[in-house]
């Protein structure tokens, strides 16, 4: 229900200087549209127009070094898309990025859930501990990347621990082997974003009604059975949302890779975002990058549609 605004001026109020102007300003339709206007303008200029441009760019053959402006470039129609789809480096980057997303998000969820359950009981200093746990997600990505880069240097702290406490003969050259380099990136992501999972699951668990758990207790359910049949199903929506949000975020991964490995060795740790970045802003193949961007936009839209569907039926 909207608030009704049309009413006679109240006795005793001051007479406005421009009564018609004031009345127009206060009209409900005007009021609500003015409120939403700045955001809509912003989205038009920085979301919708650029989206149209990227569509156009993806259909022409244009590179800044060609010396012509982009709107004068010749049409290539779907040739860019064809090149993207047959680009091995593109597919490798996609598979690699999805792999990072799956492994990192699964780890974050498992650890985050364990932490959330651990912190359900009250104990001394809990507030302080939770405050510490939440910090990593606020730090700049580049700083997290820097921190892990410093930890995993050949003469860094991690190798020292490996050699002196875990009996390794030599340190690991973390950034020389693709799989190892990738795992340090995943580790950094897990370190930074497990707190996010923890936060959502922790507050989700805290907000669950206590009654069904107590009912299950009086019916004879063990703690594990309560967790499995009562707590987890009640938390399902929160879990799905958390997984979607975090997967989308992890798919964007760029900063960590850029700082820690620069995509190396070779292109062995190159994420999709990093590849597009290089195509567009390092190699100057903007049309090609645009086609890739469009493909990403479209496929993520479809994935989101599919992922959100179970939620809609649930409620």
């Amino acid at each position, binding site marked *: 229900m909207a608030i009704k605004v049309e009413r006679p001026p109240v006795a005793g109020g001051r007479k406005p200087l421009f009564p018609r102007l004031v009345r127009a300003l206060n009209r409900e339709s005007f009021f609500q549209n003015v409120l939403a206007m700045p955001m809509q303008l912003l989205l038009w200029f920085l979301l919708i127009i650029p989206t149209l441009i990227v569509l156009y760019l993806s259909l022409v053959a244009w590179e800044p070094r060609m010396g012509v402006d982009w709107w004068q470039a010749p049409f290539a129609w779907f040739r860019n898309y064809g090149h993207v789809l047959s680009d091995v480096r593109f597919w490798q980057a996609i598979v690699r990025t999805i792999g990072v997303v799956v492994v990192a998000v699964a780890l974050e969820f498992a650890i985050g859930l364990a932490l959330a359950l651990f912190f359900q009981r009250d104990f001394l200093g809990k507030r302080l501990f939770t405050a510490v746990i939440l910090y990593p997600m606020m730090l700049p990505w580049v700083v997290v990347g820097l921190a892990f880069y410093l930890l995993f240097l050949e003469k860094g702290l991690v190798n020292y621990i490996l050699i002196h406490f875990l009996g390794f003969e030599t340190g690991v050259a973390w950034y020389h082997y693709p799989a190892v380099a990738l795992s340090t990136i995943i580790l950094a992501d897990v370190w930074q974003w497990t707190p996010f999972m923890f936060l959502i699951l922790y507050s989700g668990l805290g907000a669950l009604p206590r009654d*069904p758990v*107590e009912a299950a207790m009086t*019916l*004879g359910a063990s703690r594990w*059975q309560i967790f499995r049949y009562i707590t987890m199903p009640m938390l399902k929506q929160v879990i799905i949302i958390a997984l979607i949000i975090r997967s989308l975020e992890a798919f964007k991964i760029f900063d960590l890779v850029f700082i820690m490995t620069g995509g190396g060795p070779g292109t062995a740790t190159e994420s999709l975002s990093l590849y597009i970045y290089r195509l567009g802003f390092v190699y100057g193949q903007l049309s090609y990058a645009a086609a890739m961007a469009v493909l990403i936009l479209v496929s993520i839209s479809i994935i989101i549609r599919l992922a959100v569907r179970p939620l809609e039926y649930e409620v």
Partner: protein
Amino acid sequence: MGEGFIILKGLRKEFGELVAVEDLELEVEEGEFLCFLGPSGCGKTTTLRMVAGLEIPTAGDIFLRGERINDLPPQRRNVGFVFQNYALFWHMTVHDNLAFGLMVRRAPRSEIEREVGEMARWLELEDLLETKASRLDLSAMQRVALGRTLVTRPQVLLLDEPLNNFRPALREIMRGELKRLQKQLGSTMIYVTHDQEEAMTMGDRILVMSAGRKVQLATPRELYRQPNSLFVAGFIGRPPMNLLEVTYAREGDRAFLRKGELAWDVTLLRHAIEGGLRGEKAVLGVRPEHVLPVEEAERRGLKDTVVTGKVDLVQPLARKKIVDLFIDDTLIKMVVSSDFPVAKDDQVEVVFHPQETHLFDKETERAIYNGLS
């Protein structure tokens, strides 16, 4: 046996500073329908939760069939609990709700299906078995909550205000259903309520609680006729008992209760009164249905002090009228049959039924006599 089915000994529960239940002693007999009655916050739900194991007592012991169960977790007490808002497993179907107790006990599938089917038939939930619990109406939710508990054949069934959310009409029907069910199963039930009518109609015995303490444990009839305190007298019965502050005085051989100009001869009761009354201030109680118009009292041969009151308000009910009278500045309610002619501002002469008055000590609030005469 003489040994109670459930025994609470010196049971006490504190939440920080707050004492929710204070040194409660109680014996519940097997097969009994016991009601906990009291205003909200009097500790009745807390007591129930301690019996179920959902709260840990601060002190005292709980015995079930002679076994001390203080340290048993709720899972191992086999005590059924029906929650005030049912606490159904909203994400499950009715079938899965009913089957839950057996499933977690790892009962064989065939047995689960048989028991659930039987329970559903009995509670008329057969058509709803595949419905999600969150989509049920109140009465079905309540039946599921009951059935879910009964399937596990608990030794005791504890119910925490299960009819609270019901409309009055439905409430009355469900009361009857519950009572019939209890008789059918022959199971021991403890039923928490703040509604005296509910307790009076359902309970074999009623435990009246106030501020965490036991006030009176008695049958409904006893509570009505022989309230042991002002609290019970005021809590049981609608409209509530009329309470008049009076002064007790000896005059030679005779004894009187006086209120202003009015005096009631209590010579025959003077030993009882003097045995119980500490000072001279007392409270005279008489139920509205025992305030009789003087004509009716004469017809029934009941003689006592005639009191004159001015009618302030008449509330007609179906076959009765509730009449508010002012005697000087004290308001009294009386219940008369609906053909009794009375209107606002009439002067009415009434007599308090001499065998149905109650006297309480004003200071200790304890009963001195209940309707002796």
